[in-house]
C-alpha cells in the first residue's frame, strides 16, 4: 500500500486522497489571447520531473500541495497552501 502524508492528518493510505494535477498558473482571462487560454485549459506537462501538485485528503477535505517525482513516484514533501506556491 502506498502512503501519502497529509500535513494535518499525518500518514494515510493513498486511496484516501484525491489527485488534482500539477499546479499551473492561470493567465488573466480578460487580457490573454484565445490561444493562451486554450493552452491553459488543455495543455499539460506530461514529461516526468519533480512537480508541485494539488492533493486532497478526502476524508477530512484538506487540500494541500505535494512535491512529487512523477517518474519514481516518490513524494519529497507535502505542505499546506499559504498564499504562495
Amino acid at each position: 500500500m502506498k502512503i501519502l502524508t497529509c500535513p494535518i492528518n499525518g500518514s494515510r493510505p493513498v486511496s484516501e486522497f484525491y489527485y488534482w494535477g500539477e499546479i499551473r498558473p492561470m493567465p488573466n482571462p480578460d487580457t490573454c489571447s484565445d490561444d493562451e487560454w486554450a493552452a491553459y485549459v488543455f495543455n499539460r506537462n506530461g514529461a516526468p520531473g519533480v512537480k508541485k501538485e494539488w492533493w486532497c485528503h478526502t476524508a477530512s477535505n484538506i487540500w494541500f500541495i505535494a512535491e512529487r517525482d512523477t517518474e519514481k513516484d516518490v513524494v519529497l514533501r507535502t505542505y499546506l497552501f499559504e498564499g504562495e506556491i
Partner: protein
Amino acid sequence: MPWRLLRFGVAKKHPEPRMFTYHEKLKPSYDVVIIGGGGHGLSSAYYLGKDHGITNVAVLEKGYIGGGNTGRNTTIIRSNYLTPEGVKFYDESVNLWQDLSQDFDLNLFYANRGHFTLAHTDSAMRTMRWRAEVNKHYGVDSEVVGPDFVKREAPMIDLSCGHAPILGALYHAPGSVARHDTVAWGYGRGADMRGAEIHQQTEVLGIDVQSGKVKGVLTSRGYISTNKVICAVAGYTPRILNMVDIKTPIYIHPLQAMVSEPIKAWLNPILVSGSLHIYISQSSRGELVMGASLDPYEVQSTRSTLDFVEGLSSHMLDMFPFLSNVKVMRQWAGMADMTPDFAPIMGKTPVEGFYLDSGWGTWGFKATPVCGKTMSYTVANDTNHPLITGFSLDRFRNYSLTGEKGAASVGH
C-alpha cells in the same frame, strides 16, 4: 529433437533466417525515421513500403520490439465507438485485422469472440443504446441485448454482480482478441523484408529542427539526417515533444493488467463492465486476461501495485464468484498517453516533417493496422488521411473535441 537442436547451436550458418535483419550501423540518412518500434511504428514502416514504395526507412527503438504498450495491452479488438470519426476509423481497422495473418504468413491467433459492454445502471443503458445507433448507422454490427442473452453466452456469470445487477449490454459480434507480440513481429518482419531497417537499443536523444523543419535525429548511436519523422512512442510522447517544442494535452497515467494461471476454456466472449471497472477475456492458452481502469494519478513508470490486484480481484469475484481459488500469475503496467477527449492525436504538426501518432491512452492496440495505413498515407502525401482529420492537434485550440470518453475505456 535434441540432436537437431545441438547441430543448430553449433552451425556456423544458421539455416533458419531470423525474424529481423541485424544492422551493424545506422545509415547517414533516411527518407523517413520512425521513433518507436511498437505495433504502430512498425505498421507505419510496413505500409510505407507496401502501399507507397518508401523503403529507405529506419525504425528506432529504445528497448526491444513490442516491449512497450504493444506487449502490455489486453489484446481486445473492436469498433463499437461513440463518435462518427471513431466508429469509421476503428471499423477500418477491424477490416484490416481480418486478413493480417494471411498478409504476414504468421499466425496471430486472431479469435473472433464477441464483445459485451455490460450496463449496470439506467444511464449506462442509455449510453449503450446511443452507441448501438451510431454504430448501426455506420454499418457496424452492434446491438443492445438483455441479461438473458449475456447469461447464455457467458453461463458462469453471476448476473447480480454482488450489488450491481446487470440490466443489459452492448453486444458487438466482431469483437476479437489476437496475440499482441506477434502483431509487432509480423509488421516488423514485413517491413524488414521490404527494406526498412529496424534498430533496437537505439534511443533518440534529440531532434534537429531548423526554421520550423525537421532536418535530422540525434540518437545514442549517432546522428542521422532525415526530413520526415513519425513519433509513435505512447507514454514517452511528452519527452519527445519537448525536443521539438510542441505542447499537447497529453498526460501519462499507468494502466495495469494481470493474468491468471491457465485454466480450462470456459469463457468465450470478451466482457467489459464500466461500473465494476473490469474487462476480462480468456486467452487461447487458457489464462484469464484482466484489466481495470487507469491508475488515479500521474506516474511515468511501469511498476504495478498490490492495490490494483486487490481491487480488480474483488470486482472480478462479484461477477464470477467461482474464480475464488484461481491464482493470479503475472501483473504489469504500461504508460498510457491520455487525452482530455479520449481520442488520439494524429497527423501533421506545426513542425514541418514531424508527424505525430499519439494520445493512444488505453485504446491503441486495436488501431495498430489502421494507424500504420493512415500515418503512412499522411507521410507519403504530406496531407492528413481523411480518416484522421478528426484527430488533429488543432482541435484543442479550436475547442472542437472528439468526445470519445463514453466508449474508449472503462471507469473514467
